[in-house]
């Protein structure tokens, strides 16, 4: 009867792989533990929950911000907002922008009514943390879905 034996090199390979596996596993778990989320979405969900309830039946609405396309920080604000507002599409305000409603998304306190007037918009409702819902001035005032209060 015969068995098989293996040279030391094979067991050294197993030991080496074992050591390296433990090393990379430890490092990955450590990195995961130390990770800090650079995009705190939870803030966006809380910030936009009120306006989302009002426009959730709109397939697409306009988007207005103090940050302009191409400016530093524009997409960093736009995309998290868009993700939270999905499936409603946010279309940067411009000719042919769909829908009567426009989401104002501002990074600093401003005169939102004046900004609306500049862009042919009227404020429907202001929310905390720079969120404003506008409607186009040339459309009749109609309450957004779920808004039981009278519009200004």
């Amino acid at each position: 009867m015969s068995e098989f034996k293996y040279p030391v090199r094979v067991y050294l390979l197993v030991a080496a792989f074992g050591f390296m596996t433990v090393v990379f596993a430890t490092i990955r778990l450590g990195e995961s533990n130390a990770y800090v989320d650079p995009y705190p979405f939870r803030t966006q969900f809380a910030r936009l929950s009120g306006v989302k309830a009002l426009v959730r039946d709109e397939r697409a609405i306009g988007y207005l911000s103090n940050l302009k396309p191409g400016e530093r920080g524009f997409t960093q604000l736009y995309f998290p907002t868009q993700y939270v507002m999905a499936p409603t599409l946010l279309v940067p305000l411009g000719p042919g922008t769909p829908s009567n409603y426009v989401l104002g998304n501002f990074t600093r306190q401003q005169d939102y009514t004046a900004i609306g007037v500049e862009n042919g918009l009227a404020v429907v409702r202001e929310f905390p943390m720079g969120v404003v819902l506008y409607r186009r001035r040339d459309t009749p005032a109609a309450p957004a879905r779920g808004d039981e209060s009278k519009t200004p």
Partner: protein
Amino acid sequence: MDLLPIILAILTGLVPAWSLLRGVSLATQQKSSVHGLASLEIASTAEALLICSLAFPLGASILGLSYFGSLAAGLDTPILAIAVAVLSGGIAWLFRGRASASTGDVLGQNAEPADRVDHRQSAETPVGRAVPPFPSNWILGTLAGVSILAVLAAIWGLIAKSPYGAWDSWAIWSLRGKFIGGGGEYWRNAIDPDFRLSHPEYPIMLSSFLGWAWRIVGLDSALPPQATAFAYLISLAGMVGGTLAMLRRASLALLAIPALLSPVVMVTVPASLYADLPMGVYATGTAILLVLAASANRKLRLFVAAGIFASLCIWTKEEGLLHMLVAALVVLAIWLAKRNEWNAQWRNVLAFAMAAAPGALAFWWFRVAFALPAGTRFAGRGGSAGTSIFSRAFDLSRYGEIGAQLWETTATLGPLLAHPLVFLLIAIAVLGVSRRALRGQAFLVGVLLLGLLWAGYLGSFVMLGGRISAVLSASLHRLVLHTWPILVFVVFLGLESPESWAVPVQVRTSRKERKMAGDDRGVRASRKGKG
């Protein structure tokens, strides 16, 4: 409930995967070692693993694409996608064909023989002596399990802090999924030209599957893209391990798993919920199926499977077109390599083409009917704006920039003590290359496919508009995932197995064992005398 879409995807893909792959493995015994699998005509545990690993990618693609198709046809019901999935499973069942010869489907006359009979020439290992599995496979299995669990746990830790992934997830892939999952006409937002800040022209399959999943579990759940990432990663490990176990040895398969999962991108990219992990899965699936097809006598089914996976590459990411073209070239190369069998082998080329054609044509329809023209891959911004393709090709400074970025990305894949390339180099140095495997068609097909892919990626980097270093620094770590699994697979395919180093040792038997053996010889002799 939140995992229901994943479960449905696995169930959807099981029948087609089984139909395409059952009985294709090397079978050294007539019945399966796993109880009950013989009735399913599955010849080995490795084959079962491969079938299960291919199930989710196949199922997710069937459900995602059929759901998008139903939306485009004006039918907004996720149940229809399930009906299509059941129908495709039925069709796969009807066309399953004969699984294997009665002796089990050994991979044919032209196949790579398993090194269950090891052929390393040595004074101690006579040719033809069957070597049992490496006795320390349990240690290797433990290492593979530790690496899998560690990577999954690390991904989970990242996802717990960033449940919506990273930029491209909530700006492209998952976001489009949210649009598609909104029901009604919301799906059109995913391909709306007004969505120009993102990429409405990008392939839609992953997003469509996520959208279908969200239609089932509700848009408030963060789980669909997370569970999808886990499912794809587990499928990837199963594919590589299962195929290596089928073509070579379980010991090599188990050694390959820690090497496969060692790069940092195997944690960060899945946790980012990007489409690069699915892209890597479909690319690896295409590669292993072509390698199997090059090995197997029953090639037709495998070429069909490879064609399906190649077409799914282009539905996953833009780079998928390169993968499909390379796969087609490799199929042609396999055909041309057998000049004396052209007439017999052309059916394989046709099978690949016919399997890939529906997906490719459907993608062309998607691009023409819905998506914007292809992105600005060759348009210029910055330093290369306005330069022609030819001038970029001969601009040597671009190659230097690419090399520098490749070096930087490679260096950051892992620590020196556990760098992914160190795994491969140590395995090569200790086990050595298998001359027999290197001469085999399977290995050559793998090398050819990998080489063509790398050449294609290099070409695309050279042609990039804008500053190469800026573009590559943001994307190269993700692109590693497209070919790293194939590299690991090809390397371990070409190695000697631990069993190849086995040396037979005569074992002294005990007196009792010798007595029993002697009694047996006496009984046999008396029976012979009577007979």
